């Protein structure tokens, strides 16, 4: 066995996993606060990546401006979706709300095809190009820097939820909605902000992933891998998103490299099935929540 090759593949996988973790974080925040399973998360990140393409490619803005603008655009999209399409569904059955998010996903795909056509596109590169070596292991610079940025965002989120007053409001709402109301917490606003910040995390990840692998309207498929991540990690666990994200990213890449690309998805879903047998609520999930 070639350990150098294994090491390099693993490293790339772990880095990819970091980005999965970031998308999963976006999913988990929304689920934790609002109990909505958001199947549109992959499409929201795709939309943000296309926004970046428009700002940096079409309008030729500097990446320093284009990235924040695109991320904000993605966050805003999340907030608008919540306000106009999810809030009216409050109190309806969870399945109905899930169907709405699937509908939103198709709308976003259609919208993107109308504006930017269905052809695959390359993002203007904005990350440093000199190769990164960790010991003897080579890592593509795009992946390495993507990982670093993703992790930085993740850490900021974790610290915020753990230590800030806003984090307390979010966790209080997640723990007991009626009680949160009775504390004077504006629960509807927490819902909206959960969508905004969840979409923001996904948007950062979307731009970073698209920067390494290109962009097409089918980009949202990545949401499927992320679904595996959040189910393995536990739907409402931020820590679970982190651990499972890195693990699934690694597994997918290693399986793809050694068994062939067609084994990437079967490998992760096989692991998902095994884990669900032993831990039906995921590795870190709370027990009373429903299963998907």
């Amino acid at each position, binding site marked *: 066995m070639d350990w150098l090759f294994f090491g390099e593949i693993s490293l790339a996988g772990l880095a990819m996993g970091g980005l999965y973790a970031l998308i999963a974080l976006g999913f988990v925040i929304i689920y934790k606060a609002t109990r909505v399973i958001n199947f549109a998360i992959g499409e929201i990140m795709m939309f943000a990546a296309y926004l970046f393409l428009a700002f940096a490619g079409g309008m030729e803005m500097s990446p320093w401006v284009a990235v924040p603008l695109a991320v904000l655009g993605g966050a805003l999209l999340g907030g608008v979706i919540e306000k106009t399409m999810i809030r009216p569904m409050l109190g309806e059955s969870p399945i109905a709300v899930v169907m709405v998010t699937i509908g939103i996903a198709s709308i976003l795909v259609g919208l993107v095809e109308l504006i930017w056509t269905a052809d695959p596109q390359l993002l203007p590169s904005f990350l440093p190009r000199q190769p990164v070596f960790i010991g003897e292991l080579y890592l593509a610079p795009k992946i390495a820097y993507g990982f670093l940025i993703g992790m930085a965002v993740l850490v900021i989120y974790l610290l915020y939820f753990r230590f800030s*007053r806003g984090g307390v409001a979010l966790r209080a709402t997640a723990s007991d909605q009626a009680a949160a*109301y009775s*504390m004077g917490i504006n629960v509807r606003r927490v819902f909206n902000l959960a969508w905004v910040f969840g979409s923001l995390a996904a948007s950062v990840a979307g731009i970073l992933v698209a920067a390494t692998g290109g962009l097409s309207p089918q980009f949202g498929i990545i949401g499927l891998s992320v679904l595996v991540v959040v189910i393995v990690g536990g739907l409402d666990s931020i820590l679970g998103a982190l651990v499972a994200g890195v693990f699934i990213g690694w597994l997918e890449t290693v399986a793809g490299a050694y068994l062939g690309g067609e084994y990437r998805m079967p490998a992760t879903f096989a692991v998902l099935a095994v884990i669900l047998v032993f831990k039906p609520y995921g590795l870190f999930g709370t027990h009373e929540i429903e299963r998907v």
Partner: protein
Amino acid sequence: MDAVLEIENIEVVYNKTVQVLRGLSLTVPRGAIVALLGSNGAGKSTTLKSVSGLLALEDGEVTAGDIRFKGQSLKNRPPEKLVREGLFHVMEGRRVFEDLTVEENLVAATYALSGREDARSRGYELVYDYFPRLRERRRQLAGYLSGGEQQMLALGRALIARPELIMLDEPSLGLAPLLVEEIFEIVARINREQGTAILLVEQNAAVSLAIASYGYIMENGKIVIDGPAEKLTANEDVREFYLGVGGQDGEARSYREIKHYKRRKRWLS
């Protein structure tokens, strides 16, 4: 009379089909403790929820009547606004945030101060002075507190909000008699020292009437009898059906000897 809360003839319907309150009225004067007593399913909790606006979360609706807090009608005001105006509802079963620490629970309650000019001082120390045990456990998860401590935390959250009216839903639920007394003493102290009016919903009539100045008794969604606490305590029917003492001969009776069909509550006639 200077009332902090007035409920006038409200009717409440759940799911547009089940009527729970049928023309209930009550008044809480400023700075007073008022007890609302009644058995299971009488509609006590529903009364509180219709005041605090949490009814909508359970698909309930006030279909008639009016509720006024500090003279202003409460119709169509979101629950978090009411809390910020000084109406705090301590829900049945305490409802502490179990996966938050004790102190984080108090932090959550500071949202009640949003938009007030005195929002700077958070008042954690005041809570810890009333409940020294909470200070010892401030870094622990609230889920690991005992029932009594959770009730203290629920009251502590109310203190943080510096309300003009606290609505307490069954603070004695599931607590040992000694603890119940301790909790009620603190409730009376909060009322005395902070000047907070308290609307106390209870099944335990004896302890409630001991600290309340006025009492209401409800059955089947409306008030059947009300009066000053001493008067209620002396009332024969209240003594027999809610305090578990008395009857004609004035002695404590064994449940075995009670023949329910023999005596009708006078207010039913």
